[in-house]
C-alpha cells in the first residue's frame, strides 16, 4: 500500500476518533442524568446490542427498510419512466404528485395505521410514501433529458421500444436516478425510525423511545449511536455500489471537463 493510499484510508478516521476521545474525557466524571459517562453508554451498547437486540430489533428494522426502499425505488423508476415518456400523463399527474409529496410523510402515519393496520406493512408503506418522490421526480427529469441524438441512433438501428427504454433511456437517465435514490435512502432511514415510534413492538425507533420512557439514559444514547452507525454503513455501502455501477459516468465526465 502506498503512503498516500494509507493516508486516504486513515484520514476519515481521525476526526471521529478525536470526537469520541473528547466525549469520553468530558463525560467521564459527569453525574448529570442527561449526560451519562460514555463508559456507561458503551456498557449499555455491549449489554443490549451485542448481540441480544440485533435479532429482535435491528434485523426487523433493516428488513422493513430494505423492503420499503426497494419498493420505493422500483415504483419510482417505473412510474417515472411512464410519466417522463408521456407528456399528457405528466401534465395530468403533476398537481397530484406535487400535492402528495408536500405532505410530510410522518403526518401520513395515522392515516396509514388506520388503513393498513399496525403490522410491518404500515411501516413499509410509510417508507415507500416518503422515499418514492425523489426517485420518481428524478427519473421523470432524467428520462425527459435524454439526448435526442441518442434516441435517433437507437431508432435508426432498429431498437424496439422496450430495448430503447432499457438500454438507452434508463442508463442515460441513471445519473439523475441514482441521485434521487441517494436522497431516498436518507428519507427511508428517517421514516424507518419514525414508523417504529408509534404502534410498534420492536425496531430501533421502538428501542430508543422505550429506553427514554424508562429513564434509561445510557440506553437511549446507545440506541441513537446504533442508528447513526446504521445510517453510516448504509450510506457508505450505497456509495461503494454507486462508484462501481456509475464508473462510466465518472469516466465520461472527466473527459468532457
Amino acid at each position, binding site marked *: 500500500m502506498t503512503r498516500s493510499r494509507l493516508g486516504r484510508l486513515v484520514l476519515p478516521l481521525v476526526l471521529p476518533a478525536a470526537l469520541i476521545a473528547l466525549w469520553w474525557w468530558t463525560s467521564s466524571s459527569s453525574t448529570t442524568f442527561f449526560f451519562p459517562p460514555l463508559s456507561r453508554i458503551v456498557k449499555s451498547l455491549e449489554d443490549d446490542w451485542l448481540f441480544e437486540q440485533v435479532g429482535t430489533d435491528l434485523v426487523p428494522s433493516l428488513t422493513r427498510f430494505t423492503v420499503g426502499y426497494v419498493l420505493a425505488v422500483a415504483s419510482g423508476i417505473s412510474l417515472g419512466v411512464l410519466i417522463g415518456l408521456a407528456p399528457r400523463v405528466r401534465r395530468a399527474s403533476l398537481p397530484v404528485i406535487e400535492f402528495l409529496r408536500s405532505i410530510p410523510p410522518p403526518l401520513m402515519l395515522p392515516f396509514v395505521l388506520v388503513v393498513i393496520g399496525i403490522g410491518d406493512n404500515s411501516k413499509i408503506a410509510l417508507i415507500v410514501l416518503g422515499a418514492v418522490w425523489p426517485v420518481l421526480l428524478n427519473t421523470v427529469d432524467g428520462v425527459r433529458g435524454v439526448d435526442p441524438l*441518442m434516441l435517433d441512433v437507437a431508432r435508426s438501428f432498429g431498437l424496439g421500444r422496450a430495448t430503447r427504454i432499457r438500454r438507452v433511456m434508463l442508463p442515460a437517465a441513471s445519473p439523475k436516478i441514482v441521485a434521487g435514490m441517494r436522497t431516498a435512502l436518507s428519507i427511508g432511514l428517517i421514516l424507518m425510525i419514525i414508523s417504529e415510534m408509534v404502534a410498534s413492538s420492536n425496531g430501533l425507533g421502538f428501542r430508543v423511545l422505550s429506553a427514554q420512557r424508562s429513564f434509561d439514559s445510557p440506553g437511549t444514547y446507545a440506541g441513537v449511536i446504533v442508528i447513526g452507525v446504521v445510517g453510516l454503513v448504509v450510506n457508505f455501502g450505497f456509495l461503494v455500489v454507486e462508484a462501481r455501477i456509475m464508473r462510466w*459516468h465518472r469516466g*465520461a465526465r472527466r473527459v468532457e471537463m
Partner: protein
Amino acid sequence: MTVLDIDRVSKTYGAGADAVTAIDEISFTAEPGELLCIVGPSGCGKTTLLRCVSGLMAPTTGTVHLDDRPVTAPPRAMAPVFQDYSRSLLPWMNIHDNVTLPLKAARLPKAEREALAGDALASVGLGSQGRKYPWQLSGGMQQRAAIARALAYQPEILLLDEPFASVDAQTRADLEDLLLQVWDRTRLTVLLVTHDIDEAVYLADRILVLSPAPTRIRKTITVDLPRPRHQITTKELPEFAHLRASVFALIKSADRDDPPTDDV
C-alpha cells in the same frame, strides 16, 4: 436500377404565417454502390434532408423509396453515422457492446454477432480496442467505432451526417481514406452530407449542391476523378481544382438572391 429514390420531398416546420420551409421539393436518386455527397451552405436543410431520407422524420410532402418500398420508419437497410460521436456512441457500453447492440436488437445469433463485430472493428483498425469505453478513445477512434457499428449492421446504404466535422485535419484525412477503403471493399451505397467542398470532391461520384433555405438542389455535379483516390496526388490534379472551384462558385452564388437552376 436505383436503390434510393427521393421524390419531391419537402419539409415545412410550423403552420400558417410562422411556417418555415426547410427543404423544398428535393428529388434525387442513388444507384447501388454510388458514393453521393450532399454539399450546401451552412444553415441549409442538410440535416433535415438526411432525417427525412433516413425515416427519422416524415416529410411534409413527397416520398422516399428504398428498393421500391416507401420509407416511413428507419429501414433495416440503412445505417447512420452522425457528426457528434461523443453523443452517438453510448458511454455506458464498451465499443464492442455499442457495435453489437443493434445486432442483438435484430436478434442475430451470438456467434454471428461476434463475427460481424470482430470484422467491422478490425476493418476500421479497432480490432483490439473492443473492451474500451468510447470516452477512453480519441475523437477519431470514436468515429471509427461509430463507422464500425454502422458496418456491422450490414446495411445497403450508409448515411453519414457531417461525419468528419468534429475531428482535426489530419484525422479527417485518415477517416476519409478509411471510408473510401471500406466503400471500395463493401460497395455500399454511401450518402454523405458535408459542408466541406474539398471533402465532397475528394470522395464523391456525384455531388448534389444545395441552395440556402428553402433548400433545393442547385446542381448535380459528376466527379470523374480517377480511383483509387489519394490525398496528395488526387488533390493535385487540375480537374480537382476545377471541380472544387465550380462547387465553390455554386455555393457562393447561392448566397445571393438569384434563382436556383434545377438541372438535375
